[in-house]
């Protein structure tokens, strides 16, 4: 008898798929129901089903990550509410997928294909490479271009600060000191565990500029710059009497920006 596992974090949707499968493929036995990727793998190892129906977006471990672990030990059918990912792999017909809410006709097609594959080969054909590709797409869709929020620990609190509120970053040994102003124009300081070098590429270069080996400033918080000797200078900030030196190496670059 053919066995299957269903993984979905929403109970109603698990039940719905069970019901539909019971109708369309009465001989299929659902041996396990998982609520997330981690459970799916545990239950897979326990029951070793022939087929896994995996929801793509699940808490903790996603369906795609679970599929990577399961590999070719089972036929995998992805279930998704919205196929924003992975269109090519699916379109090529290599990976099976269902869109929620599941259409009976579409489910029958999938069942036929699964039956064929089960009859033909002992091993599943879901290629590792394709699943990896899928996983990459899933991860990439969430990476923003530049940082817009920073976590800063002050005492026991971890504040989340909008990057555009930050006046400057200043290097302090392995750490970075940053100064920002809140909506009510009060100034605060905090320490970041990231060194200033690692921070620079994550900041929007149109807004943040390095003015010294040890300092990065927000251009919109600078009120004026006073030129010193030998192509150096001093940057003044609006609303506070703090100043920062501009080194010779960074002055020319800074000047072209202003």
């Amino acid at each position: 008898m053919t066995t299957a596992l269903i993984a979905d974090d929403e109970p109603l949707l698990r039940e719905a798929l069970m019901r539909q499968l019971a109708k369309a493929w009465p001989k299929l036995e659902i041996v396990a129901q998982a609520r997330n990727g981690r459970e799916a793998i545990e239950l897979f190892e326990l029951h070793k089903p022939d087929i896994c129906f995996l929801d793509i977006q699940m808490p903790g471990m996603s369906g795609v990550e679970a599929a990577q672990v399961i590999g070719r030990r089972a036929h995998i059918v992805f279930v998704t509410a919205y196929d924003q990912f992975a269109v090519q792999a699916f379109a090529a017909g290599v990976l099976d997928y269902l869109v929620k809410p599941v259409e009976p006709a579409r489910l029958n097609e999938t069942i036929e294909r699964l039956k064929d594959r089960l009859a033909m080969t002992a091993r599943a054909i879901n290629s590792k490479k394709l699943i990896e590709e899928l996983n990459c797409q899933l991860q990439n869709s969430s990476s923003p271009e530049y940082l817009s929020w920073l976590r800063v620990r002050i005492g026991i609190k971890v504040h989340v600060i909008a990057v555009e509120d930050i006046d400057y970053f200043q290097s302090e040994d392995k750490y970075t000191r940053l100064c920002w102003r809140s909506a009510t124009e009060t100034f605060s300081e905090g320490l970041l565990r990231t060194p200033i070098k690692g921070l620079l590429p994550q900041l929007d270069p149109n807004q943040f500029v390095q003015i010294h080996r040890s300092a990065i400033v927000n251009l919109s918080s600078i009120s004026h710059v006073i030129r010193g000797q030998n192509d150096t200078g001093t940057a003044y900030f609006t609303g506070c009497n703090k100043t920062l030196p501009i080194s010779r190496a960074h002055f020319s670059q800074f000047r072209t920006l202003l």
Partner: protein
Amino acid sequence: MNTNRRLWLHIRFTALFSSGLGYVVDLIFNYGVPWFAFRTLAVGMTALFAFEVFAKWPVKNMLGIPRWVLQVLAVGCAVPLTTLVLWSFATPLKEWPFWQSGDRLMEFGFVTFIGLLVAPWMALGVLVRQKDAFAREQEVAFELTRSQLERREQDARLQLMQAQVSPHFLFNTLANVQALVDTGSPRAGLILRALTKYLRSAVPRISQDSLPTLHQELVSVRAYLDLMQMRMPDRLEYSVTGETATEHIFCPPLFLMTLVENAVRHGIDPSETGGRIDVDVRRTGSCCHISVKDTGAWNGGKTHGTGSGLKTLRTRLKLTYGKKAALRLQYIEPNGFLAELEIPAEHEPA
């Protein structure tokens, strides 16, 4: 400038100028008591009175004479008339009328001449200044409305951005509705109703009959949380407290929803065990404190689209309230996130 302040300014200026002019004459002729200063003061004030009266009266402009002509003419007439009255009454009983006394006739002539020379011109000057000021005021007012309109338009555009219902959310919810309908569950109606309520706020509203209120926002937030709880009954608990005090407070659409959606998307969704979300609204004086607290996972990099909704919210806050609103975000140890929003408790948009 308001009318009262302007009137006081005119009175002070006229008083100083006219009495000053008279006092100079007093000094030149070495009179012990500054009679002249009193008289010129009286002339100045009468002229000003005429000027101000004709600025308002007649209400309807008759004869087609421009108002400024009327005002200047009034000032021109007021000066010799007042001088005449003053000098007539200032004559002691048993003396000759002043026009038969050389000295005092000369005084009369002098004051009339100077008055006629100075007063109408001054009136004209004031009128020109008033016209300029009026134009400037209009310009400022126009600029203000324009910037207000621009801000509203910008906010509308941002709102449109924020109002994009996540297709993933929508289709998952519809799959739930489908499942409930297929089994004939009575909960199908509930979930559908909650979805409708949520969509009404999440879909951009092009025109709005009434101002959006915090109350409306809380209704949609409740609907959204109801919906999510029906979808994941084992993973989400929530509470919404303190609605009563906030019934009519103005709140642009999606301000609160963004925070709640974030708590679900980044706190509850990625967590295997889920958590709870507490929404609290309270009012202290003219300030409204809103807090959205969750006990979810918030495991950083793995969440999708982190921060873009909050970024838009920040921009919208600045556009709507300037520096009068604040948004504070912080992680809670060991699990969770707290978003605090402070907005002015206004009944009208700024």
